């Protein structure tokens, strides 16, 4: 071979260096590749298509001035209830997170799983639960009427703002418990000890040491809760009733009932823009408040409850959690095993008997329906969709969360965009899927895979917000120390990063799992009737009259709760290598 460089070689070398240069410029963007492709194809493109149908320059002028008035009124209420709901959720969630992260007591993992169950329950089921407890003929009202010999129900709950707020707290407290709890579990106790030694009282330690360190995770929990409340749909319809309307409810009315796509498009755009603005504010706040400390592996901060005062506080909190989470949920399994006798209209003479009929009936296709699904198939469908969602959202979310630890300028701009799927109305996106994926080369609308893809869109923001604060809390000097001691980069990652993020990863998996199990709005628009999920099966039973249908819906809801609870406990108990060691 000649030593002389031929012109071709020089040319190829130049090309090579250009390629290397291009790669080096692209490299920071590499982790974003999966998410970008995914978002463009399954979020922005369908959304743009459907918004264009509604909001092209000619149709825009058909929106009447009355509609703008309506939009502004709805917007104000949406904002108002979301703020209130978020504040209440934080008020309950923060102390509970503290309790879970700092104290070790029997039944803790059960309680933790319990608080996560509402998060995935379909609103129809939650509304039935609240109604059995607090409705006009619920246990509490009937008890009070009996006790004080009242003619009418003393507590008016269903159809009030209070019902909306309580349901939102019920649904979203788990977000605060998990995100803030994870951060708390990893805090370096020496900082608090130092502050205490220097004479600070516990309250001052809380305000000046713990809360500033928790700011990123509190912000993340707040933004997720707020956006969930801001885009609330089922809770407003079923528990708030027709006197209340949020943007999402109005979008549904305009897009589906009135087929007023221009107005529906405008409202969708408002909702998306708001989500973007909230996310930008969040990103600004959070980048200013990350303080890398010396995070501990989970479990090292745990204390036993000893003092009487601590026991009293712990007992009170546990009782509060049980009241809030068990009572509304308990009515579902209860209704699934009690039989109402035929003379149900005779007030005061309703006779209950226990029965397993509703569960047995689930296995019978009484009417030879072509859409009958055996319960284990529905469980199987739900679990398959959920497993795909967990895998997909972790695979797409992990690289991005890692990249966001030291974000470049472009990544700072991309960051808030990741939250957008939470702000997209399910109806709008559902219709967007239809107009986008109905013809080749994208004729995927009949594919069962659209379900986990839609679930992944909703789960991704949760996955990223779970992982990012945990990854960001790891100080670089730990990695540098490991590297200088001779650890290879993979070894550094596995011994330094992994033990700290393993808990956040599991938590992210729990969120993706529960979101997929419980999602109804988007699922109902893209699911194939042959492969229904558990929430879809519940809705089918509730769409026809008859005691057997109602009982089967309650039985299915109980199955859903059991599957979800078992799934959460299982994921949290996964003994991944590296857990618990540091």
């Amino acid at each position: 071979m000649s030593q002389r460089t031929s012109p071709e070689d020089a040319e190829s070398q130049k090309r090579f260096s250009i390629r290397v240069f291009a790669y080096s410029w692209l490299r920071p963007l590499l982790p974003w590749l999966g998410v970008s492709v995914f978002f463009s194809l399954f979020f922005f493109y369908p959304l743009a298509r459907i918004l264009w149908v509604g909001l092209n320059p000619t149709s825009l002028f058909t929106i009447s001035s009355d509609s703008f008035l309506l939009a502004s009124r709805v917007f104000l209420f949406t904002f108002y209830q979301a703020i209130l709901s978020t504040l209440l959720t934080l008020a309950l969630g923060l102390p509970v997170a503290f309790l879970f992260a700092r104290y070790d007591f029997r039944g803790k993992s059960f309680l933790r799983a319990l608080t996560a169950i509402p998060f995935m329950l379909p609103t129809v089921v939650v509304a039935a639960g609240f109604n059995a407890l607090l409705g006009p003929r619920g246990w509490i009202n009937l008890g009070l009427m009996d006790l004080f010999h009242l003619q009418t129900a003393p507590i008016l709950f269903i159809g009030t703002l209070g019902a909306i707020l309580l349901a939102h707290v019920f649904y979203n407290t788990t977000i605060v418990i998990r995100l803030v709890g994870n951060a708390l579990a990893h805090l370096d106790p020496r900082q608090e000890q130092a502050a205490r030694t220097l004479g600070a009282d516990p309250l001052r330690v809380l305000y000046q040491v713990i809360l500033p360190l928790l700011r990123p995770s509190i912000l993340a929990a707040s933004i997720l809760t707020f956006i969930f409340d801001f885009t609330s749909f089922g809770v407003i319809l079923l528990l708030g009733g027709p006197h209340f309307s949020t943007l999402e409810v109005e979008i549904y009315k305009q897009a589906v009932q009135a087929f007023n796509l221009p107005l529906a498009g405008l409202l969708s755009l408002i909702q998306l823009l708001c989500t973007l603005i909230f996310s930008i504010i969040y990103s600004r706040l959070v980048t200013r408040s990350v303080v890398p400390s010396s995070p501990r592996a989970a479990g090292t901060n745990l204390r036993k409850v000893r003092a009487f005062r601590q026991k009293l506080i712990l007992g009170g909190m546990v009782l509060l959690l049980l009241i809030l989470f068990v009572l509304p949920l308990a009515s579902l399994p209860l209704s699934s095993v009690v039989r109402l006798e035929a003379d149900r209209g005779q007030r005061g003479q309703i006779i209950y008997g226990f029965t397993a009929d509703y569960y047995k009936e689930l296995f019978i296709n009484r009417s030879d329906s072509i859409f009958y699904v055996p319960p284990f198939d529905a469980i199987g469908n739900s679990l398959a969709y959920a497993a795909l969602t967990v895998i997909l959202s972790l695979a797409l979310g992990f690289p991005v969360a890692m990249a966001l630890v030291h974000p470049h300028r472009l990544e700072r701009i991309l960051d808030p965009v990741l939250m957008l799927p939470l702000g997209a109305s399910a109806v709008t996106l559902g219709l967007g899927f239809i107009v986008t994926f109905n013809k080749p080369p994208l004729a995927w609308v009949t594919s069962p895979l659209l379900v986990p893809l839609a679930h992944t869109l909703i789960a991704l923001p949760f996955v990223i917000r779970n992982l990012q604060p945990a990854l960001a809390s790891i100080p670089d000097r730990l990695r540098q120390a490991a590297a200088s001691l001779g650890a290879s980069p993979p070894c550094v990652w596995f011994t330094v990063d992994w033990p700290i993020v393993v808990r956040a990863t599991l938590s992210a998996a729990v969120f993706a799992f529960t979101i997929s199990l419980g999602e109804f709005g988007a699922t109902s628009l893209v699911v194939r009737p042959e492969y229904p999920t558990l929430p879809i099966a519940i809705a089918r039973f509730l769409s026809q009259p008859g005691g057997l249908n109602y009982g089967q819906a309650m039985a299915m809801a109980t199955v859903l709760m059991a599957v979800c609870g078992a799934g959460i406990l299982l994921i949290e108990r996964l003994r991944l290598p590296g857990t618990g060691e540091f």
Partner: protein
Amino acid sequence: MKRLLVVALSLSVLLAACAPKALVTLTVMTHDSFAASASVVAAFEQANNAKVVFLKSGDAGAALNKAILTKDAPLADVFYGVDNTFLSRALDSGIYEPYASPSLANIPAEFQLDPQDRALPVDYGDVCINYDKAYFTAHALPVPATLEDLTNPAYKGMLVVENPSTSSTGLAFLLATVNHFGVTGYLEYWNSLRANGVVVVDGWETAYYTNFSGSSGHGPQPMVLSYASSPAAEVVYATTKLTDAPTASVLGPGTCFRQIEFVGILKGTSHLALARKFVDFMLGQQFQEDMPLQMYVYPVNSAAKLPQEFVQYAQTASQPATLDPAVIAANRDKWIADWTNTVLR
């Protein structure tokens, strides 16, 4: 390389030989409430060497909007489930291919609302007020017979209805009141209903299972806006075997609104002949007799016999309210907006 090609070729021949004989797939787009017996659908599939795939697309409104939005590249060959309150929207959007099915001969003219045969009637149902029989017996209360009766203080706070802006049942009842009291009088009627404590909820599920005292939810209101066929469903899906329905319908003249559901062939289908056969099948006796116990609706085909449960426990209104679909289409948004201002604000 050559050997690889031979292997690949023989493999593909083998696979082709093993694959079942190619069936034509017919896609039928419907709303979530659609149901049919597996054996009935299988009979059609066998007779026509076809496979029928159903695409459920949300509630009646959502399904129709999807059909309209995809009319350039239709997702299905046949679309079932548009009712007379949405009929004009469907017809005006031009999604249907006309088809004068020979089966129409057995269907009374009152159901055939589209003279051009783009949308063909399949079934009907009456949206009526159901009442809790035991409650009325226990309180020795006469059952209301007319819409006017409902404003009687004796029934204060006893009726729950659905919101017409979110529920097709609610819309049907609003239309019944427009039909009975006229455009000038219906709001006044709703004012007096409101004064008499009418409860409004957003969906049928809430109204029936949360508020109605006659359902398994045993709520506070003994009257609910549901369907004339609901009492039959209460018997068929009873927890314990019932000899009589626990509920019944108020069927007085003008109190119920008749919903008629239609099927049509989607323009652009590549299986026109098969789609026509499917429409014939839906209007034919076998499917028509299967519908009542599957979807709790009535067959439009006069040759179809009703199941025993329907004869015994379900009744139809003798003088149901109806309105011209074009009139509904032209006024529904205004009527709903005015209703909202009157009842909810």
